[in-house]
């Protein structure tokens, strides 16, 4: 499988992706084989259904959101390998002395922010937050409790008083958190 997929991937394409994302060629090949294995229809692109076919993603409370986040740059409902790699490159570990284009702290945070921000207005509204809380906490909890949690969360983060969490406020609340480490995956070489 690995050999076959690497054959399908052109040398220059690998070089381009490497240049754009910082993945090493072997990592790119590895991920390409994953990409093709996800691609059930063999059409070189992935649809939402392809993602959701992963069983663990189906039980992930934020599964839909994660998949959705992959498609933010996509024009239609499919993403190609390059877009796929662009998204994944956000989760490369940070290297201190190297330029980090996609995997900077801000990019990582922006991806996390996208889990909440469904309408792309760069703000988390109360309803958006409530929706995510609902997904994570489960359905059996009373609305009031969740609402007060959401209120408190917004109140805590909201510095400009618009009852929303903007991206800047979101980053500020996570200042103490080691996002660089938390949102990195050790890709095998």
């Amino acid at each position, binding site marked *: 499988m690995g050999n076959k997929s690497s054959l399908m991937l052109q040398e220059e394409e690998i070089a381009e992706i490497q240049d754009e994302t910082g993945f090493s060629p072997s990592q790119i090949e590895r991920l390409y084989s994953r990409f093709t294995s*996800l691609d059930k229809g063999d059409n070189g692109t992935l649809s939402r259904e392809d993602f959701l076919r992963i069983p*663990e993603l189906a039980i992930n409370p934020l599964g839909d959101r994660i998949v959705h986040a992959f498609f933010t740059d996509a024009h239609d409902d499919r993403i190609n390998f390059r877009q796929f790699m662009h998204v994944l490159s956000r989760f490369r570990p940070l290297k201190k002395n190297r330029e980090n284009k996609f995997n900077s702290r801000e990019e990582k945070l922006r991806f996390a922010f996208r889990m909440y921000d469904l309408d792309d207005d760069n703000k988390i509204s109360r309803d958006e937050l409530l929706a995510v809380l609902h997904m994570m906490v489960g359905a059996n909890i009373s609305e009031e*409790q969740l609402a*007060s949690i959401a*209120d*408190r969360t917004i109140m805590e983060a909201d510095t400009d008083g618009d009852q929303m969490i903007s991206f800047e406020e979101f980053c500020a*609340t996570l200042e103490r958190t080691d996002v660089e*480490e938390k949102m990195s*995956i*050790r890709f095998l070489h």
Partner: protein
Amino acid sequence: MIPIMYRTYLMKPSIFTSVCLIFILLATLTVRADESKFHPATGSLDRHETVTGNSEQHLTTSRSDVPKVGSAGVPSLLGEPSEHLNKNHKSHRYHVATVDFSKVSTPYIISLWIFVAGLAKIGFYVTPKIGLICPESCVLVVVGVLIGLLLFFTGLEHVGPLTSEVFFLYMLPPIILDAGYFMPNRLFFDNMASILMYAVVGTVWNALTIGFSLWGVGLTGLYGMDMPLLDTLLFSSIVSAVDPVAVLAVFEEIHVNEVLYILVFGESLLNDAVTVVLYHIFDAYTEMGQEHIITIDYVFGVLSFFISSLGGAFVGVLWGLLASFLSRFTYRVLIIEPLFIFVFGYLSYLTSEIFHLSGIVALTFCGMTMKNYVEENISYKSHITLKYAMKMLANTSETIIFMFLGVSTVTDEHEWNTWFVVMTILFCSIYRSIGVVIQTWFLNYFRLHKVNKVEQFIMAYGGLRGAVAFALVLVVSEDHIPSKKMMVTTIIAVVYFTVFLQGMTIGPLVRFLRVPKSNKTKPTMNERVHTISIDHLMAGIEEIVGHLVGNRHLRDKFKYHNNKFIRPLLTRNHQVREPKIFETYSKLNLADAINLVSQNVNVRGKDPSISLASLIRTYIQNNLGNCSDEPIRHSDNVFSRDELNLLNLDISELDYSPTYKDLADAELHHNLSDLMFKPVKKTVRRYSRDLIDEDTPFHHKNRMELRHHQNQLQNVRARNKKKMKNDSKQNKNTLSRWNLLPGESERSDKDGASLNNSETIIHMENLDSSDKPAPSGAVTFTIEEQNHTTLSQDISDESGMSRNSFSSTPLSSRTITETTLPWKREEDCNDESCIRKQLEFPSWVENTEYNTYTSLSSNVLKRSNTDDDGNDPPDVFRLLQLKELHEKEKESSKNQRLETDDKFNNSKPHEEDFDVTAAGGGEVLQETTTRDTSENPLELRRPTPLKTNWKNHMSL
């Protein structure tokens, strides 16, 4: 060094120290007085056994003598008859006072040791600056040495209290349980692979290299004695293990970052399995003799390692799950709730020891398992108790261990072999450093958080040896290993070297090398929520990437199955999938509230009857919808007070369900107040509608006054009518229930004031009677004592007086009475036994008798009242109250509540009292308002503070 420390130790609290010394002397003397008797701590008969007697014998005797520990008094009992016979022959006199120390010697001496250890610990913290020089463990060892010297010179040096049995059975478990229970699970499992690597590979590496090196050096004849390979290997397996007690003692003081801490500490916990196995292997091999070992023994040796460690973990998890399951049911016996944790932890330890599994591993895993589920089941108080008790036990054990280590040092059994000691220390340090570097290099390839050079150094340097090694070496039988004494001495030397030299320098080194310190702060709400969402996100990404790297998807999977299968079985309230979110929320709110309260005390609020809770609720109703009306101020803290007031301070209030105890308490309180109540004849009160009665806010007594008044009227009528059915000893104190149920009263009217045995209610219909005049008898009193005398009383139309007197306000069926009495509610008056689903707040939250002293909210109110030197602070309180008043006015004008009969002015004050509280008690106000606005009042029974109600309100 030691004398200097000792002097500093003595210098300031000289009184304290002298007291200490006196007690130590006393302890010595008591021990001495009882010298011939059994010594409990050693578990051995002391007098006749020569000190030089080999320790193997020492141990065996200690085992065989253990039954005698408990039976210190038995010999006297058994022996006494003969003595008594003898005495009878001589003279039988009753002694006024007798001394019988032997009877209590065992517990007495144990208590004395604990006492002295406690004193030493206090001494450490009382003495300033000593904490800067050296860690606590060093001081304790020094104190131990001093006591040892004292015992030595008083000829009691054989009272070596630290035996391996005492250590492993009684002193170690509390420390390990504490460590396991309060282990940061997540951190532990994140670094699990590394920890296991260090613990297993590292320890084996250390044991083998140290053993072979010592043996190799021994071949040169440096030690001046013969050291066979197996002996050195046995020795090295003991000495190679990092000691959890010592590591804990030192690392908790230096506060390095969590990852470093968990790496060293986790290693020290888990390597116990390795040490135990290695120890048993080599012990067995030495017993067998080198020449008899065949290959299968080696295979079994390796196998037994897996059995010991995995078996230990399995036993621990099993007991942990069992404890969790039981804790589901302990809420009925709250008082012993914390006990289960201890017992189950200890049982897991003992169980695994039965099968020669690693007890430490078992206990660690037991604690880690229990914590997850037990914490959700037990009450808050039990949690606190548990925490303190566990910390106390662990701390005491630790203190005693270090002290005993000191005491045990002072014997004349030592066999000092300089080269052996030096070589051991040298090899220990060198091989640990090499091991750490090699393993870290290997691990860093896979780790996300790379362990850097400095951290590696601290890891190597923090490999402290301690009492575990000492206790283990004591068990070595001298028959097989002739050099045992030398080994004991060497171990002590190594322990001293690491505890003193490394323990004392590691703090300054950490500071010097600028090792990242831990910045442990409580997570904010945002951090908590976002971290969890990020976790899910990363788990999802890991799944998409599809590599088997990272453990986040594993954790997510575990979480999923945990929520689906395990938690429903083990926890009582398992609806919440992310209990951490709620935990954080409650904790933060509690912290905020405490913070608020701590900033304001002594000032009494304007109207304590208005609870903060109701204020907040009304405020939210009024303002949260259009926030632009109220620009929210911002101060430096994350939370300004205004913001805080918007929040409900206690999430549990939202879903309040009182316990039986609460209900019983409330009932008892009301009963008591009723009994104690002395009616005042007639209080003349000025009355003004708009004035909120500040001096006497609603009070429980008002209710009583009201009832008293009612009662009087009733008596008059009763005298007129004489229509008592039963014996009319209407003791009003037995009125245990009081409720207002318009529909109900009608029903009971039709039933002819029937006797309901199951319900004990007084129907006071007259409050509602202006809306719908009762058909025949206006007021129906059904007064009952539960299942005792039942008497009901019909009050006929003459009660028009009272009816009118109360008819001025068309209050909704939920009146203040209802809010005052927590146990009676409309919806569940048919079912008394069930725990009632409460409204948003416990109803008596409005009752000043409850909240005057202790209520958080009233304190908060006080503060908000007297804010800014009382210069008309633009605070929420006032705003809220004005709004409320305004609200009330609107309500009242709408309902034409001024239609009161002038004749019955005297009853108005009471009436007004109701209103005041109605204004204050958010629940009542809310109820009235929502009732007016909505078509379906029942639906709004449960106030949903943030959504439904204010929306309704806005629509008004």
